[in-house]
């Protein structure tokens, strides 16, 4: 099979799982005939019919609430939000119901649902189309947050998310929906949730990142390698829970930590990772940990967008500072 894009991998996983599990249904705005605004659900309605591929009225709170209701009855609903920036009306259901149904009923009812949303900036979109708010969801007990960063991980992690019996926020980095391509084996094999993926081995710095920043991080690692600095690049992938074991094991080799994320700095996931290292693996560090994040600003309209996106150079510079200041 030819190489496919990340969005095609999402589509492939949806096709696979709907084919194999009659309880899987998908719902959202424009997902039927139109195949979703990014075409993630292309062809599904034609294959599985309008009872399993459901165009909803334009109402995000409804979409989330209906998903909770369906999941409570043993379906495995997958809800699509057109953009992460439109998930706010649904927050009440995600936080108050999806996250709590199992606990509230002491396991009598559960919420095996996936809430998908494209996220992140860099596609010259209008306001409210560039949000990166994974930390908000990671903060909520009862939710899990997963972010794929390659076609293969989009395929395997989405399958795992659908099969999971817990509610999962599945955020897709839309900037790389079509720019990264790779081979994906359509074999129905899920990847483990709750686990990091080490994408590049290195000895000098542990770089932890996720989503679209993985692309620039790997590029920066190549550049730095020419200058004798070897980065170990880790794709966090599971934002909640965080796999600290992989990160700590890497720090045992490198002793230096750099976290890179597109989301705003304050109370971001980078703060969480660095705190955990400070709490339990401080002695492994040869230098203060560093984070390279988005700014604590509202994402500007696209004329200024590039200044706010993390560039390859930003990562190179941050890594150099981390090496130089504390040799």
């Amino acid at each position, binding site marked *: 099979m030819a190489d496919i894009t990340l969005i095609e991998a999402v589509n492939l996983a949806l096709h696979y799982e709907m084919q194999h599990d009659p309880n899987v*249904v998908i719902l959202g705005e424009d997902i039927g005939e139109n195949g979703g605004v990014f075409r993630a659900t292309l062809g599904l309605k034609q294959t599985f019919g309008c*009872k*399993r591929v*459901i165009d*909803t*009225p334009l*109402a995000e*709170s*409804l979409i*989330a*609430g*209906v*998903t*909770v*209701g*369906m*999941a*409570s*009855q*043993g*379906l495995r*609903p997958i809800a699509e939000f057109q953009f992460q920036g439109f998930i706010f*009306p649904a927050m*009440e*259901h995600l936080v*108050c*119901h999806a996250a709590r149904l*199992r*606990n*509230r*009923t*002491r*396991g*009598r*009812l*559960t919420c095996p649902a996936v809430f998908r949303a494209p996220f992140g900036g860099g596609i010259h979109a209008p306001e409210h189309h560039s949000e990166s708010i994974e930390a908000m969801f990671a903060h909520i*007990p*009862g939710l*899990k947050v997963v972010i794929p960063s390659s076609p293969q991980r989009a395929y395997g992690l989405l399958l795992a998310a659908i099969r*999971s*019996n*817990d509610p999962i926020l599945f955020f897709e980095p839309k900037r790389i929906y079509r720019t990264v391509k790779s081979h994906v084996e359509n074999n129905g094999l899920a990847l483990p949730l*709750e686990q990091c993926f080490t994408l590049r081995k290195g000895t000098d710095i542990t770089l932890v990142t996720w989503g679209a920043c993985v692309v620039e991080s790997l590029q920066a690692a190549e550049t730095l390698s020419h200058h004798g600095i070897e980065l170990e690049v880790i794709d966090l992938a599971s934002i909640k*829970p*965080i796999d*600290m*074991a992989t990160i700590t094991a890497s720090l045992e080799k490198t002793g230096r930590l750099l976290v890179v994320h597109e989301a705003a700095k304050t109370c971001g996931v980078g703060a969480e990772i660095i705190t955990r290292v400070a709490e339990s693996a401080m002695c492994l560090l040869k230098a203060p940990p560093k984070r390279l994040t988005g700014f604590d600003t509202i994402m500007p309209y696209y004329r200024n967008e590039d200044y706010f996106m993390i560039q390859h150079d930003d990562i190179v510079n941050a890594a150099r500072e981390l090496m130089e200041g504390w040799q």
Partner: protein
Amino acid sequence: MNIQTQPMHRYIDHRGNLIAPLPEWANDTLLQQFYRDMVLVRHYDKKAIALQRTGKLGTYPSHLGAEAIGIAIGSAMQSTDVLAPYYRDMPALWARGISMLQNLQYWGGDELGSSFPSISPDIPHNDDMPFCVPISTQCTHAVGIAAAMKIKGLHRVTVATCGDGATSKGDFLESLNCAGVWNIPLVFVINNNQWAISVPLHLQCHAEHLVDKAKGAGIKGIMVDGNDIVAMYDALLQSLDQARKGKGATLIEAVSYRLCDHTTADDASRYREDEEVKQAWQFDPIVRLKTYLINQNLWSEDEESQWLDICHQRINQAVEQYLALTVQAPESAFDYLYEKADPDLHYQRDALINKAMRMEKQNSGGNNG
């Protein structure tokens, strides 16, 4: 004009007089059963408030005045149907077979109060939703449940309930709208008790009647006297039957009045005239049915006092059981969060257990010394 005297679906007026021939289903035994159930849940309610006042229950929302609505809902639904209730629906749950003990447990601050046992031999797993505290959210869940039934081809109907205040919220309107578009087996029941805490109906809604909202959604609407259990049960039977036959959703506006404070944390006298409440008592659903039954020689004061004895016995037994329950272990908060806890949660769980043990030791030390 008092909304409770307006024309609407009604068989027995507030003086206990029959104003229309009773529907076919209305046999003497069933009416007596309705009456007994209403009396029982009213006395339960009184007891629950007393428990709260003496520190044995958390904040509790009384259902005083809403007995006919709940008992009708719980009795009309088949055990295989699914209920998405709101917090004032103890009577509906009771009539569906959920015990008083379970309700005490819930308001007593124990999640096990929502772990309902099966109520149907056909369905080993109880699919009813727990109470939703965020107003109106249960309506969207009910849409999902009803849609699930349609997808699975099951002839099970979902009933969602809410208050009049809840109809202002997007979730309610989004749900109604979607139920129409999807033509799903769903019945909405609004308990229009005319107050949402301190906000009266006219500050909540400018439509003439809440049931008018059904029109906007293209579904059937019935305005029912919520204090006439015969009318309530009848409207529910019709709507459930229509839903079961694939003919779509119905909105029932059950017109009633909240005869009580909003909850035990509320003092309604701060915002409500005594005169209004006094008038509302004339429409009491229980007195109405009792008058009718006595006039028909279907009930007597002797039977009443015998039944009251039984009620008190049953209520006291539930309270005794409730007070004797052991509290869930503190770490249970971790045990139902995810299917499987991650390593950090295990660590936090252990930390909590240590803390709880330390506190218990201190407490027992304090008592001894």
